[in-house]
């Protein structure tokens, strides 16, 4: 009896959190999405979403998020693998994680300095004789900075998965005739796929709704769903349209989670 009561008591903060910061906002977003800019109930926002302008925006959001995730994965997997082989792996891991504690905006401003007309990147290009060029406000700088920001979040779950891998499994594969590549393909990768999946989730979903970087680094050349939401709420004051895009973004997130969720064998 008493135990049950304390357990219920302990769950109060969690329930409050979920109700106040998850359920209520989603309901509000859904509610606002059914009002046009004049405040009349209508489905016009949903109709507008399926026009080429917004569909293109959705497509480019997905495309950039996909690129960012794939590149981050290609860099993170080998990095995490090397980290697990080093002597002071926790220290090296920490050094990679530390920059992620710095505020996103500060990092973005730092990159404006580095990639700017007279920034370090252009100075180096000058010195090696390539000549300075426009780096900031390009697709390249947008993807570069996004990948840089997301890499720690990708490395961490992959590192944990690799670190938990029983080393005698690798010996066993080797013993049974597997070359290093076969061992990777048949043992290491399948056993760390869950780490890869959660890494992709952590990167792909936020990358879909990136908005600050699109303006600061990509100079509004890249317009993602996140940017569109921000513009509607803060600039055009069309809360209805902003909410509608948010609804689709939420749907997309659930979809991604559904695709990448862990499917434990035998359960």
């Amino acid at each position, binding site marked *: 009896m008493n135990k049950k009561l304390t357990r219920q008591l302990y769950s109060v903060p969690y329930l409050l959190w979920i109700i106040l910061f998850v359920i209520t906002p989603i309901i509000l977003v859904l509610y606002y999405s059914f009002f046009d800019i004049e405040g009349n109930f209508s489905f016009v926002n949903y109709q507008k979403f399926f026009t080429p302008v917004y569909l293109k925006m959705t497509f480019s959001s997905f495309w950039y998020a996909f690129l960012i995730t794939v590149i981050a994965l290609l860099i993170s997997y080998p990095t995490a693998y090397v980290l697990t082989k080093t002597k002071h792996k926790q220290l090296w891991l920490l050094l990679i994680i530390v920059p992620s504690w710095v505020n996103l905006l500060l990092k973005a401003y730092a990159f404006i300095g580095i990639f700017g007309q007279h920034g370090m990147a252009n100075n180096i290009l000058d010195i090696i004789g390539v000549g300075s060029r426009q780096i900031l406000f390009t697709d390249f700088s947008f993807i570069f900075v996004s990948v840089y920001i997301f890499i720690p979040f990708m490395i961490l779950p992959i590192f944990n998965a690799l670190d938990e891998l029983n080393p005698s499994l690798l*010996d066993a594969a*080797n*013993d049974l005739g597997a070359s290093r590549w076969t061992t990777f393909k048949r043992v290491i990768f*399948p056993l760390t796929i869950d780490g890869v999946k959660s890494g992709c989730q952590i990167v792909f979903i936020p990358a879909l709704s990136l908005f600050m970087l699109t303006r600061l680094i990509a100079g509004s050349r890249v317009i993602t769903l996140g940017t569109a939401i921000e513009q509607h709420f803060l600039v055009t004051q069309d809360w209805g349209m902003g909410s509608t895009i948010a609804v689709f973004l939420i749907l997309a997130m659930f979809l991604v989670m559904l695709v990448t969720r862990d499917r434990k064998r035998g359960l």
Partner: protein
Amino acid sequence: MTDQQIIQFKNVTKQFGDDQPVLNEVSFEIERGKFYTLLGPSGCGKTTILRLIAGFMEPTSGEIYFDGKLCNHIPANKRQVNTVFQDYALFPHLNVFENVAFGLRIKKLKNKVIEEKVRQALSFVNLGGYEHREIKEMSGGQRQRVAIARAIVNEPEVILLDEPLSALDLKLRTQMQYELRQLQRRLGITFIFVTHDQEEALAMSDEIFVLNKGKIQQSGTPIDIYDEPINRFVADFIGESNIVKGTMIEDFRVAFVGQQFECVDQGMNKNEPIEIVIRPEDLAITSQEKGKLKVTVVSQLFRGVHYEIIGQDAAGNEWLVHSTKKAQVGDQIGLDFEPEAIHVMRFGESEEDFDRRLEAYAEDDERE
């Protein structure tokens, strides 16, 4: 070099950095079709020998021959050897069938052949019908069998077993000892089994290598090693033993605890200091007058099959006795033993000298 020989170690040393070598100039030969056991305490180098044979590491110096060919630098995946790991190392993402089929799939055999071989290997270890189970649904003993099936399915020349029974409970362990021994006989492949459990080693092996501190102390059949331990370490490690200092007065006469006894050992210097071993089961309880040794019972434990009695003689030596007869703590009793029960060990005798001395007795026996 005979055809029978499959593995040969020649002065093999393995050293990590500047530490004491894990293996120090070890030489031995392994013959086809026998069950070998590497026995020793942890850190004696037994697992290192296994890893060297498997190809997971290379020796610092010395040569390893496999089937007459030098194989120091041949990687593990190119060797005709399979290992059963201590923690089984089964692939958790694959089911029983795919675990066993792993090696065959790498060899790119036809599906039909793989299926047949896997089924056969699983039935060999009494796991027919478990093909589609997941590894985590299997018990410890069953996982053990899967690991063995995964090794034998590749039809290797040698199977290495790294303390494979240590994680099982006593009953299952005894059962698996029988099964492993039978399996080895049926398959006729060489088994090299690593353990720190001397009973396991005695029960299963054709030949035992007793290792300590990176050196082979003694090799021989279980009976040889149990009956004629070469030194204090082996006597102490294999079975329980009473070890006391003594003097070899002359051939067939040995003195210890201030008395002289008839024995069966010979070929040593006169008055050479030696150590003698008497196994606890070779000591029989009698009355004080009849006993060769007179001791006071210090403690007694009931062990099921026998009583374990510790007696102390006048000189303060403790004597461990295994007897089906009961004694009373504080009693004065006599201990009797046969001359054959006394095993004499010389200090610092090498294995070659030891073997030569034992062979000399045998020749004498034949002449008589």
